[in-house]
């Protein structure tokens, strides 16, 4: 007639499990953060990209936000939505290219480093790429950079969503080229499908 048939052993396993899961999940931790007020106004000068490591006076620390964004799922997702709403899709389609070069292959005319892509967006490039400096706040450009890099699998796979809620020419696959014709409501007839 004693109390509680099995007393002390209760806590070992949950602790162990917790520790293992904690270790596993810590890796995913930074990927999940959602930063709403990353760059308070006037903290980050617009469009500043440092091309030379030399600078007069006391060296400034580099913009820290970009590294945080590049592997952050929320930033990639925001970048994707801005890619649509700022009409990047108009020229690059959903990465497959059209009037502009495709972004999901491994050819980079102006370099694939985050800073290069940032510059390309801010400064524009000859033959059609407009300059968005001053039109898009820098943190959003970093989000766009993160998304663009994810198109050619330059970010960890876990940061990018599997699909969007839109029509896809090859449902289930985002690695193939997107259609060039404008989207229609409803399914396109089979004859309009490009040969796969």
């Amino acid at each position: 007639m004693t109390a509680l048939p099995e007393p002390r052993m209760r806590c070992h396993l949950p602790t162990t499990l917790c520790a293992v899961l904690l270790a596993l999940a810590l890796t995913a931790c930074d990927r999940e953060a959602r930063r709403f007020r990353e760059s308070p106004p006037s903290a980050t000068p617009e469009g500043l990209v440092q091309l030379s490591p030399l600078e007069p006076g006391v060296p400034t620390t580099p913009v820290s936000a970009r590294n945080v964004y590049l592997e952050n799922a929320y930033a990639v997702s925001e970048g994707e939505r801005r890619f649509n709403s700022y009409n990047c899709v108009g020229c690059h389609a959903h990465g497959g290219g059209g009037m502009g070069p495709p972004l999901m292959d491994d050819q980079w005319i102006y370099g694939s480093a985050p800073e290069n892509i940032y510059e390309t967006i801010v400064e524009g490039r000859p033959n059609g790429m407009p300059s968005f400096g001053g039109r898009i706040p820098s943190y959003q450009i970093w989000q766009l950079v993160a998304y663009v890099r994810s198109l050619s699998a330059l970010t960890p796979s876990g940061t990018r969503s599997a699909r969007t809620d839109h029509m896809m020419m090859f449902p289930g696959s985002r690695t193939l080229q997107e259609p060039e014709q404008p989207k229609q409501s409803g399914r396109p007839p089979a004859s309009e499908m490009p040969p796969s």
Partner: protein
Amino acid sequence: MTHAREVVALPATDHEDDELAALRRSWRPRHRGLWGWLTAVDHKSIATRYVATAFLWFLLGGLNAALMRLQLARPENGLVGPDRYNQLFTVHGTAMMFLFAVPVMTAVGLYLVPLMIGTRDVAFPRLNAFGYWVFLIGGVFLFVSFYLNTGPDTGWFAYVPLSGPEYAPGKRVDVWAQLVTFTEIAGLVAAVEIIVTVFKQRAPGMSLNRIPLYVWAILVVSFMIVFAMPAVAMASTMMLAMDRLVATHFFNQAEGGDPLLWQHLFWFFGHPEVYIMFIPGLGFVSSIVETFTGRRVFGYPVMVLSLFITGFVGFGLWVHHMFATPIPQLGRSFFTAASVLIAIPTGTQIFCWIATIWAGRPRFTTAMLFAIGFIVVFVIGGVTGVMIASVPFDLQVHDTFFIVAHFHYVILGGVVFPLFGAFYLWFPKVTGRMLDETLGKWHFWLFFVGVNVTFFPMHILGLNGMPRRVYTYLPEMGWGDLNLLATVGAGVIAASVAVFLVNVVRSAWRGALAGPDPWGGPTLEWATASPPPPWNFRHIPVVESGSPLWSAEAELPVATGLRTDRREFLVTTVLDAVPDNRHEHPTETIWPFVMALAIGVTFIGAVFTPWAYVVGFAFATVAFAGWAWPRGTKPEERVHPGLAREAR
């Protein structure tokens, strides 16, 4: 024949000593320490830790609720931001529904059912252990994710497209989808065990019309689990997880999927879930009322039928969560009718309890107070439930604080009040010590006041336009005072739960000794020692009425002849519980734990890489082989003549 109620006190003869020693030898756990803990299969130790774990999730989920109440205490409060708040309420809802309310009910069932029907263990003890481990991994997964800022944030209902790949980036919703899988596996496993145990292992003589009402309740619920949970398991694991992880299009409107499909699948589970939670509560109340009025619950057949009707009709009203979506008028009327109809069986049961109290000699113990508190609180949730069955009215209050008030009255009233009552009733059975009644009364009154102060004002908030799931509100909306009142109430609830915890810890340590039957209860669990030995009953009791301990003249008749040199139990027929066969229970084994780990690796790993399925499949194959590896006695030794009927 032995007087089972006094089996401990009886002077033991040599023969009895031998028998007891043999029982002890064959039923005693094979291992000690950590290994013993991992390999345990006894339904009582599994169920005890199941309840303790579920209660831990209840406390953590309650902590979330307290934070939410603090955030809403005044307008434009800055305690938590929207991102954190969304995780708070999602994890609160998910934990309370998936990790507390249903598991704690099945867990108590897993403890009580074998004792109440007079058998030695549940039907599949290893499966039982497996269910617990899966449940534990799922709960740890959710809360660890939450504390790492990866908690799901799209509501416990996870409506697509908000929870789909485009609008819920990262792994948060994947955590939710996989958690649902874990809990559904655990729930289905427990349901299957309970169904088979109740059908095939009742004590001789416990025909269908002698089954205790609580056992009927948990049986109905187990069937509901079997029918309801596959819908959400399929929806969350297959469809949502696949949409998110491998880009299927089940819910993508643009590719022929449908976001409303999710809502139908979810609520086809989600509404019966409500009844899955509170029908066992009705069973608790029946047990409490019976024990403390000293008479059987009035109208036994009506009570049982009511449980069945609730179970059936509970599947016919899921659309009343979706009145604001495109549903034709006729369809809405149908679901209104079903939603109104379900009030009838529940009302009938309440009338029967009132009649029982009227005719009995109630003892107002803490458990009885909780049963009465249940009726007082739950009926408010019931009448508002009838109101929101009305489509036009529901469209005004749907997704507002009125609904929050309604379902907290239903769930706190119908689940938590009976559960606390059950704690006070059966704690002596589980631990051998009584819970303190003075602290118990404090606990009850604080809880009763706290619940009403917290949730009653929410009705008015909802009618005055406050929607659910808002992290803040503007000062000019005029909702501040009532929200502050609700937050004060939440503090009172927290205090009452603290009193309860103190009571449990203190009483488990040095409460008054209970003895086998401290309350003079009618059902079989009071016929054995407290806490019950691993073999539950020294001899399997024979039942001759619905309240065997009250009607047994002087001694409870028992059936003898089970072998004691191995873990043997009696199988009886479904309808009349005539002895039919004998079976051997498995001994302690690590494989259920290994299998649960394999499931854990598969589903948690799948969030990060599809290769987890390959690895997990191999792992699970090994675990399954280990589990199913033939061992123990040879089959020919299992047939052993000498009981009421020959096997086969």
